[in-house]
Protein backbone atom coordinates (compact mmCIF):
# COMPACT_ATOMS: atom_id res chain seq x y z
CA UNK A 1 0.00 0.00 0.00
CA UNK A 2 1.21 3.51 -0.79
CA UNK A 3 0.62 6.48 1.52
CA UNK A 4 0.14 9.97 0.13
CA UNK A 5 2.05 13.04 1.31
CA UNK A 6 0.82 16.29 -0.19
CA UNK A 7 3.44 18.90 -1.03
CA UNK A 8 1.96 22.36 -0.30
CA UNK A 9 1.26 24.56 -3.32
CA UNK A 10 3.37 27.32 -1.75
CA UNK A 11 6.13 25.32 -0.14
CA UNK A 12 8.31 27.30 2.25
CA UNK A 13 9.29 27.28 5.92
CA UNK A 14 5.78 28.33 6.97
CA UNK A 15 3.93 25.62 5.07
CA UNK A 16 6.63 23.10 6.01
CA UNK A 17 4.67 22.23 9.16
CA UNK A 18 1.69 21.16 7.04
CA UNK A 19 4.09 18.99 5.02
CA UNK A 20 5.79 17.58 8.14
CA UNK A 21 2.37 16.70 9.59
CA UNK A 22 1.39 14.86 6.43
CA UNK A 23 4.77 13.10 6.38
CA UNK A 24 4.54 12.03 10.04
CA UNK A 25 1.03 10.63 9.54
CA UNK A 26 1.93 8.77 6.35
CA UNK A 27 5.27 7.39 7.53
CA UNK A 28 4.13 5.86 10.80
CA UNK A 29 3.20 2.42 9.44
CA UNK A 30 6.28 2.02 7.23
CA UNK A 31 4.44 1.85 3.91
CA UNK A 32 5.83 3.23 0.67
CA UNK A 33 5.27 6.99 0.36
CA UNK A 34 4.08 9.04 -2.60
CA UNK A 35 5.03 12.72 -2.40
CA UNK A 36 2.52 14.57 -4.52
CA UNK A 37 3.88 17.89 -5.80
CA UNK A 38 1.72 18.02 -8.95
CA UNK A 39 -0.11 21.15 -7.72
CA UNK A 40 3.02 22.95 -6.52
CA UNK A 41 3.14 26.58 -7.60
CA UNK A 42 6.26 27.75 -5.79
CA UNK A 43 8.91 26.36 -3.49
CA UNK A 44 11.56 28.19 -1.52
CA UNK A 45 15.06 26.70 -1.14
CA UNK A 46 13.91 25.51 2.29
CA UNK A 47 10.99 23.65 0.73
CA UNK A 48 13.22 22.01 -1.89
CA UNK A 49 15.92 20.77 0.49
CA UNK A 50 13.23 19.75 3.00
CA UNK A 51 11.53 17.62 0.36
CA UNK A 52 14.84 15.90 -0.39
CA UNK A 53 15.33 15.21 3.32
CA UNK A 54 11.86 13.64 3.42
CA UNK A 55 12.78 11.47 0.44
CA UNK A 56 15.98 10.41 2.20
CA UNK A 57 14.05 9.53 5.37
CA UNK A 58 11.32 7.69 3.46
CA UNK A 59 13.75 5.17 2.06
CA UNK A 60 12.78 1.84 3.66
CA UNK A 61 15.73 -0.29 4.69
CA UNK A 62 15.74 -3.60 2.85
CA UNK A 63 13.33 -2.39 0.19
CA UNK A 64 14.30 -1.78 -3.41
CA UNK A 65 11.33 0.53 -3.88
CA UNK A 66 12.16 4.17 -3.60
CA UNK A 67 9.50 6.64 -2.48
CA UNK A 68 7.46 8.10 -5.32
CA UNK A 69 7.38 11.75 -6.35
CA UNK A 70 4.84 13.32 -8.66
CA UNK A 71 6.55 16.30 -10.26
CA UNK A 72 4.82 19.68 -10.58
CA UNK A 73 2.64 19.96 -13.67
CA UNK A 74 3.05 23.68 -14.30
CA UNK A 75 5.89 24.03 -16.84
CA UNK A 76 7.40 27.14 -15.28
CA UNK A 77 7.43 25.51 -11.83
CA UNK A 78 9.00 22.40 -13.28
CA UNK A 79 11.63 24.46 -15.06
CA UNK A 80 12.39 26.42 -11.91
CA UNK A 81 12.79 23.29 -9.76
CA UNK A 82 15.10 21.87 -12.40
CA UNK A 83 17.16 25.06 -12.64
CA UNK A 84 17.39 25.09 -8.84
CA UNK A 85 19.09 21.69 -9.07
CA UNK A 86 16.30 19.85 -7.28
CA UNK A 87 15.69 17.03 -9.75
CA UNK A 88 19.38 16.24 -10.13
CA UNK A 89 19.39 15.24 -6.46
CA UNK A 90 15.81 13.91 -6.36
CA UNK A 91 16.56 11.39 -9.11
CA UNK A 92 18.68 9.38 -6.66
CA UNK A 93 16.04 9.39 -3.93
CA UNK A 94 12.67 9.14 -5.63
CA UNK A 95 10.96 7.29 -8.41
CA UNK A 96 9.85 10.42 -10.23
CA UNK A 97 6.62 10.59 -12.21
CA UNK A 98 6.17 13.42 -14.67
CA UNK A 99 8.08 14.74 -17.63
CA UNK A 100 11.12 16.73 -16.64
CA UNK A 101 12.44 19.54 -18.85
CA UNK A 102 15.97 19.31 -20.21
CA UNK A 103 17.48 22.37 -18.60
CA UNK A 104 20.68 22.54 -16.65
CA UNK A 105 20.85 23.75 -13.06
CA UNK A 106 21.27 27.53 -13.08
CA UNK A 107 24.71 29.02 -13.44
CA UNK A 108 23.72 32.67 -13.90
CA UNK A 109 20.61 33.70 -12.04
CA UNK A 110 19.21 34.39 -8.60
CA UNK A 111 20.04 30.78 -7.76
CA UNK A 112 23.36 31.55 -6.09
CA UNK A 113 23.93 27.92 -5.26
CA UNK A 114 21.72 25.20 -6.73
CA UNK A 115 20.63 22.39 -4.46
CA UNK A 116 24.00 20.81 -3.62
CA UNK A 117 24.73 17.66 -1.65
CA UNK A 118 26.84 17.96 1.50
CA UNK A 119 28.35 14.70 2.71
CA UNK A 120 31.92 15.52 3.67
CA UNK A 121 34.30 18.36 4.46
CA UNK A 122 35.36 18.41 0.81
CA UNK A 123 31.80 19.35 -0.19
CA UNK A 124 31.88 22.29 2.23
CA UNK A 125 35.09 23.52 0.55
CA UNK A 126 33.39 23.36 -2.84
CA UNK A 127 30.29 25.18 -1.58
CA UNK A 128 32.30 27.99 0.03
CA UNK A 129 34.52 28.40 -2.99
CA UNK A 130 31.54 28.58 -5.34
CA UNK A 131 29.46 30.93 -3.23
CA UNK A 132 32.22 33.52 -2.90
CA UNK A 133 32.50 33.79 -6.65
CA UNK A 134 28.77 34.25 -7.14
CA UNK A 135 27.42 35.94 -4.02
CA UNK A 136 29.76 38.87 -3.79
CA UNK A 137 28.05 41.05 -6.42
CA UNK A 138 24.54 40.27 -5.22
CA UNK A 139 25.30 40.85 -1.54
CA UNK A 140 26.94 44.20 -2.24
CA UNK A 141 24.93 45.64 -5.11
CA UNK A 142 21.48 44.22 -4.49
CA UNK A 143 21.36 43.81 -0.72
CA UNK A 144 23.51 46.80 0.14
CA UNK A 145 25.86 44.79 2.34
CA UNK A 146 29.41 45.98 2.79
CA UNK A 147 31.56 44.05 0.26
CA UNK A 148 33.52 42.75 3.26
CA UNK A 149 30.34 40.99 4.40
CA UNK A 150 30.80 38.38 1.67
CA UNK A 151 33.41 36.59 3.72
CA UNK A 152 31.13 36.52 6.75
CA UNK A 153 28.41 35.12 4.55
CA UNK A 154 30.74 32.35 3.39
CA UNK A 155 31.68 31.64 7.02
CA UNK A 156 28.01 31.37 8.01
CA UNK A 157 27.34 29.06 5.08
CA UNK A 158 30.35 26.93 5.92
CA UNK A 159 29.30 26.49 9.54
CA UNK A 160 25.69 25.70 8.59
CA UNK A 161 26.91 22.99 6.19
CA UNK A 162 29.36 21.58 8.73
CA UNK A 163 26.49 20.82 11.05
CA UNK A 164 25.52 18.13 8.58
CA UNK A 165 29.02 16.71 8.25
CA UNK A 166 29.72 16.68 11.98
CA UNK A 167 26.34 15.93 13.54
CA UNK A 168 23.80 14.46 11.13
CA UNK A 169 25.35 11.03 10.64
CA UNK A 170 24.20 11.17 7.02
CA UNK A 171 24.40 13.50 4.03
CA UNK A 172 22.21 16.52 3.43
CA UNK A 173 21.69 19.42 1.03
CA UNK A 174 22.25 23.14 0.86
CA UNK A 175 20.75 25.75 -1.47
CA UNK A 176 21.27 29.51 -1.63
CA UNK A 177 19.03 31.88 -3.46
CA UNK A 178 18.33 35.60 -3.75
CA UNK A 179 14.80 36.75 -4.40
CA UNK A 180 12.34 39.56 -3.85
CA UNK A 181 10.29 38.70 -0.78
CA UNK A 182 7.15 40.63 -1.60
CA UNK A 183 4.80 39.01 0.90
CA UNK A 184 6.83 39.69 4.02
CA UNK A 185 9.31 42.44 3.46
CA UNK A 186 8.84 43.89 -0.01
CA UNK A 187 12.62 43.67 -0.21
CA UNK A 188 15.24 41.45 -1.67
CA UNK A 189 16.66 38.74 0.55
CA UNK A 190 19.35 36.09 0.34
CA UNK A 191 18.26 32.76 1.77
CA UNK A 192 20.43 29.82 2.84
CA UNK A 193 18.56 26.55 3.37
CA UNK A 194 20.25 23.43 4.73
CA UNK A 195 18.48 20.16 5.45
CA UNK A 196 19.26 16.58 6.33
CA UNK A 197 17.35 13.55 7.56
CA UNK A 198 20.00 12.54 10.06
CA UNK A 199 19.89 12.04 13.80
CA UNK A 200 18.87 15.59 14.71
CA UNK A 201 20.07 17.90 17.49
CA UNK A 202 18.51 15.99 20.37
CA UNK A 203 20.17 12.71 19.51
CA UNK A 204 23.49 14.41 18.73
CA UNK A 205 23.63 16.23 22.09
CA UNK A 206 22.04 13.47 24.19
CA UNK A 207 25.21 11.72 25.44
CA UNK A 208 26.62 14.92 26.95
CA UNK A 209 23.54 16.99 27.76
CA UNK A 210 20.52 14.86 28.63
CA UNK A 211 21.57 14.33 32.26
CA UNK A 212 22.04 18.04 32.78
CA UNK A 213 18.51 18.75 31.56
CA UNK A 214 16.89 15.72 33.21
CA UNK A 215 13.14 15.51 32.60
CA UNK A 216 13.26 18.74 30.57
CA UNK A 217 15.42 17.08 27.91
CA UNK A 218 13.63 17.36 24.55
CA UNK A 219 14.10 18.51 20.97
CA UNK A 220 13.34 22.07 22.09
CA UNK A 221 15.88 21.89 24.93
CA UNK A 222 18.51 20.53 22.54
CA UNK A 223 17.92 23.34 20.05
CA UNK A 224 18.05 25.94 22.79
CA UNK A 225 21.29 24.47 24.13
CA UNK A 226 22.90 24.50 20.69
CA UNK A 227 21.73 27.84 19.33
CA UNK A 228 21.34 29.99 22.45
CA UNK A 229 23.95 28.49 24.79
CA UNK A 230 26.46 27.43 22.12
CA UNK A 231 26.69 23.89 23.48
CA UNK A 232 28.22 21.18 21.35
CA UNK A 233 28.29 17.41 21.73
CA UNK A 234 32.09 17.60 21.82
CA UNK A 235 33.79 18.36 25.13
CA UNK A 236 36.50 20.41 23.42
CA UNK A 237 36.03 23.99 24.73
CA UNK A 238 36.40 25.41 21.23
CA UNK A 239 33.32 23.64 19.96
CA UNK A 240 29.96 25.34 19.49
CA UNK A 241 31.59 28.33 17.80
CA UNK A 242 29.81 27.82 14.49
CA UNK A 243 26.25 28.65 15.46
CA UNK A 244 27.48 31.46 17.73
CA UNK A 245 29.37 32.90 14.76
CA UNK A 246 26.31 32.67 12.53
CA UNK A 247 24.30 34.51 15.19
CA UNK A 248 26.88 37.30 15.39
CA UNK A 249 26.87 37.69 11.63
CA UNK A 250 23.09 37.81 11.47
CA UNK A 251 22.86 40.30 14.34
CA UNK A 252 25.10 42.61 12.36
CA UNK A 253 23.06 42.39 9.17
CA UNK A 254 19.59 42.14 10.74
CA UNK A 255 19.21 38.56 9.58
CA UNK A 256 17.22 35.62 10.82
CA UNK A 257 18.04 32.00 11.62
CA UNK A 258 15.54 29.25 12.31
CA UNK A 259 16.40 25.62 13.03
CA UNK A 260 13.87 22.82 13.03
CA UNK A 261 14.74 19.43 14.45
CA UNK A 262 12.48 16.58 15.53
CA UNK A 263 9.37 18.11 17.05
CA UNK A 264 10.70 21.62 17.74
CA UNK A 265 11.78 24.76 15.97
CA UNK A 266 13.86 27.63 17.32
CA UNK A 267 14.41 31.03 15.74
CA UNK A 268 16.40 34.17 16.40
CA UNK A 269 13.77 36.62 15.26
CA UNK A 270 14.71 40.07 13.96
CA UNK A 271 12.36 43.04 14.35
CA UNK A 272 11.04 42.77 10.81
CA UNK A 273 9.68 39.27 11.40
CA UNK A 274 6.83 37.96 13.54
CA UNK A 275 8.04 34.37 13.86
CA UNK A 276 7.82 32.57 17.21
CA UNK A 277 11.20 32.14 19.00
CA UNK A 278 10.52 28.55 20.09
CA UNK A 279 7.86 26.06 19.05
CA UNK A 280 7.51 22.62 20.58
CA UNK A 281 5.14 19.73 19.91
CA UNK A 282 5.41 19.98 16.13
CA UNK A 283 4.92 16.92 13.92
CA UNK A 284 8.02 14.73 14.12
CA UNK A 285 10.37 15.18 11.17
CA UNK A 286 13.80 13.57 10.96
CA UNK A 287 17.13 15.38 11.01
CA UNK A 288 17.61 19.12 11.06
CA UNK A 289 16.51 21.92 8.76
CA UNK A 290 18.20 25.30 8.93
CA UNK A 291 16.95 28.55 7.41
CA UNK A 292 19.06 31.71 7.26
CA UNK A 293 17.67 34.94 5.80
CA UNK A 294 19.66 38.11 5.18
CA UNK A 295 17.54 41.05 4.05
CA UNK A 296 18.40 43.97 1.84
CA UNK A 297 19.86 46.63 4.11
CA UNK A 298 17.94 49.78 5.02
CA UNK A 299 14.60 50.04 6.76
CA UNK A 300 13.21 46.56 7.39
CA UNK A 301 9.91 47.57 8.94
CA UNK A 302 7.40 44.85 8.07
Amino acid at each position, binding site marked *: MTRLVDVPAQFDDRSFEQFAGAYAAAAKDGERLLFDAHAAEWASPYGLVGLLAAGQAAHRPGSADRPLLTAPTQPDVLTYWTRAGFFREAAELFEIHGKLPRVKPAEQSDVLLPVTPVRA*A*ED*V*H*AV*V*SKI*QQRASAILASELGLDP*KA*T*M*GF*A*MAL*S*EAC*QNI*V*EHAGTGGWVAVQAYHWRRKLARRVVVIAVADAGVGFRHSLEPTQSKRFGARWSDAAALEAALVQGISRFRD*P*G*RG*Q*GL*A*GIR*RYLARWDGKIAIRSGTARIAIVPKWDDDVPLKDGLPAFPGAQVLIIIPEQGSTTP
Partner: protein
Amino acid sequence: MIQHIDVHAVLQESVSGVYTDLVTRPTGRVVRERIERAMATAQDPVTVTRIDFTGVGCIDYSCADEIVAKLLRDRRAVVVLSGISEGHREAIEPVLAGHGLAALVERREGGNGELEALGAPEAAAALVDELVARRLAVRTPAGTIALTLA
Protein backbone atom coordinates in the same frame (compact mmCIF):
# COMPACT_ATOMS: atom_id res chain seq x y z
CA MET B 1 65.14 33.23 14.99
CA ILE B 2 61.81 34.04 13.32
CA GLN B 3 60.27 31.10 11.52
CA HIS B 4 57.96 31.91 8.61
CA ILE B 5 55.03 29.64 7.81
CA ASP B 6 52.99 30.19 4.65
CA VAL B 7 49.49 28.96 5.54
CA HIS B 8 48.27 29.16 1.94
CA ALA B 9 51.04 26.80 0.87
CA VAL B 10 50.29 24.46 3.78
CA LEU B 11 46.60 24.49 2.80
CA GLN B 12 47.40 23.66 -0.81
CA GLU B 13 49.42 20.67 0.36
CA SER B 14 46.74 19.60 2.82
CA VAL B 15 43.50 19.49 0.82
CA SER B 16 42.84 18.11 -2.60
CA GLY B 17 41.91 20.54 -5.33
CA VAL B 18 42.72 24.19 -5.56
CA TYR B 19 40.80 25.62 -2.62
CA THR B 20 42.07 28.76 -0.93
CA ASP B 21 39.63 28.81 1.97
CA LEU B 22 40.37 27.59 5.47
CA VAL B 23 37.04 25.96 6.25
CA THR B 24 35.93 22.86 8.18
CA ARG B 25 37.43 21.24 11.27
CA PRO B 26 39.18 18.39 9.44
CA THR B 27 40.99 20.89 7.20
CA GLY B 28 41.91 23.04 10.21
CA ARG B 29 43.24 19.99 12.04
CA VAL B 30 45.42 18.88 9.13
CA VAL B 31 46.78 22.40 8.57
CA ARG B 32 47.53 22.86 12.30
CA GLU B 33 49.28 19.52 12.52
CA ARG B 34 51.50 20.46 9.59
CA ILE B 35 52.29 23.81 11.17
CA GLU B 36 53.10 22.09 14.48
CA ARG B 37 55.39 19.67 12.64
CA ALA B 38 57.17 22.58 10.96
CA MET B 39 57.56 24.33 14.31
CA ALA B 40 58.87 21.19 15.98
CA THR B 41 61.39 20.35 13.29
CA ALA B 42 62.89 23.80 12.70
CA GLN B 43 66.68 23.49 12.58
CA ASP B 44 67.50 26.62 14.56
CA PRO B 45 65.88 27.47 17.89
CA VAL B 46 62.67 29.36 17.11
CA THR B 47 61.69 32.29 19.28
CA VAL B 48 58.93 33.70 17.10
CA THR B 49 56.77 31.94 14.53
CA ARG B 50 55.20 34.22 11.92
CA ILE B 51 52.12 32.53 10.53
CA ASP B 52 51.29 34.20 7.25
CA PHE B 53 47.69 34.04 5.98
CA THR B 54 48.38 35.93 2.74
CA GLY B 55 46.49 34.28 -0.12
CA VAL B 56 44.00 32.55 2.17
CA GLY B 57 40.41 33.36 1.21
CA CYS B 58 37.83 32.76 3.89
CA ILE B 59 38.55 31.44 7.39
CA ASP B 60 35.58 30.05 9.24
CA TYR B 61 35.18 29.84 13.02
CA SER B 62 36.00 26.14 13.08
CA CYS B 63 39.35 26.69 11.37
CA ALA B 64 40.09 29.77 13.47
CA ASP B 65 39.57 27.60 16.54
CA GLU B 66 41.33 24.54 15.22
CA ILE B 67 44.40 26.42 13.97
CA VAL B 68 44.91 29.74 15.76
CA ALA B 69 43.37 29.01 19.15
CA LYS B 70 44.98 25.58 19.50
CA LEU B 71 48.43 26.81 18.40
CA LEU B 72 48.22 29.60 20.96
CA ARG B 73 46.99 27.27 23.66
CA ASP B 74 50.06 25.07 23.19
CA ARG B 75 52.41 28.11 23.31
CA ARG B 76 55.43 26.43 21.76
CA ALA B 77 56.73 29.82 20.58
CA VAL B 78 55.55 33.39 20.29
CA VAL B 79 53.05 33.35 17.43
CA VAL B 80 52.62 36.37 15.18
CA LEU B 81 49.80 36.32 12.65
CA SER B 82 50.46 38.19 9.42
CA GLY B 83 48.55 38.74 6.19
CA ILE B 84 45.33 38.97 8.18
CA SER B 85 42.38 40.59 6.35
CA GLU B 86 39.27 42.12 7.90
CA GLY B 87 37.40 38.94 7.07
CA HIS B 88 40.00 36.74 8.76
CA ARG B 89 39.86 38.99 11.80
CA GLU B 90 36.06 38.53 11.99
CA ALA B 91 36.56 34.81 12.54
CA ILE B 92 39.71 34.88 14.67
CA GLU B 93 38.87 37.63 17.16
CA PRO B 94 35.69 36.13 18.71
CA VAL B 95 37.27 32.67 18.83
CA LEU B 96 40.26 34.01 20.77
CA ALA B 97 38.01 36.07 23.04
CA GLY B 98 35.91 32.99 23.73
CA HIS B 99 39.00 31.11 24.89
CA GLY B 100 40.41 34.05 26.87
CA LEU B 101 43.39 34.06 24.48
CA ALA B 102 45.23 36.77 22.57
CA ALA B 103 47.47 36.78 19.51
CA LEU B 104 49.85 39.26 17.99
CA VAL B 105 48.82 40.49 14.57
CA GLU B 106 51.15 42.23 12.18
CA ARG B 107 49.53 45.35 10.78
CA ARG B 108 48.97 44.98 7.10
CA GLU B 109 49.38 48.23 5.18
CA GLY B 110 51.95 50.78 6.18
CA GLY B 111 52.43 49.01 9.46
CA ASN B 112 56.22 48.83 9.22
CA GLY B 113 56.20 45.57 11.12
CA GLU B 114 54.16 47.03 13.97
CA LEU B 115 52.02 44.64 15.94
CA GLU B 116 48.77 44.77 17.78
CA ALA B 117 47.25 42.26 20.14
CA LEU B 118 43.96 40.67 19.13
CA GLY B 119 41.58 38.73 21.35
CA ALA B 120 40.54 38.88 25.00
CA PRO B 121 41.60 42.33 26.38
CA GLU B 122 43.18 41.00 29.59
CA ALA B 123 45.08 38.30 27.75
CA ALA B 124 46.17 40.85 25.13
CA ALA B 125 47.58 43.20 27.77
CA ALA B 126 49.36 40.33 29.53
CA LEU B 127 50.82 39.09 26.23
CA VAL B 128 52.27 42.50 25.39
CA ASP B 129 53.68 42.92 28.91
CA GLU B 130 55.30 39.48 28.71
CA LEU B 131 56.94 40.14 25.33
CA VAL B 132 58.27 43.50 26.46
CA ALA B 133 59.59 41.95 29.69
CA ARG B 134 61.30 39.19 27.68
CA ARG B 135 62.73 41.91 25.38
CA LEU B 136 61.23 40.24 22.36
CA ALA B 137 59.24 43.41 21.65
CA VAL B 138 59.34 47.11 22.43
CA ARG B 139 56.59 49.67 22.76
CA THR B 140 56.69 52.27 19.95
CA PRO B 141 56.01 56.00 20.36
CA ALA B 142 52.79 55.45 18.38
CA GLY B 143 51.48 53.23 21.15
CA THR B 144 51.92 49.96 19.25
CA ILE B 145 54.61 47.34 19.71
CA ALA B 146 57.35 46.05 17.42
CA LEU B 147 59.42 42.89 17.51
CA THR B 148 63.05 43.32 18.45
CA LEU B 149 64.03 40.39 16.23
CA ALA B 150 64.60 41.09 12.56
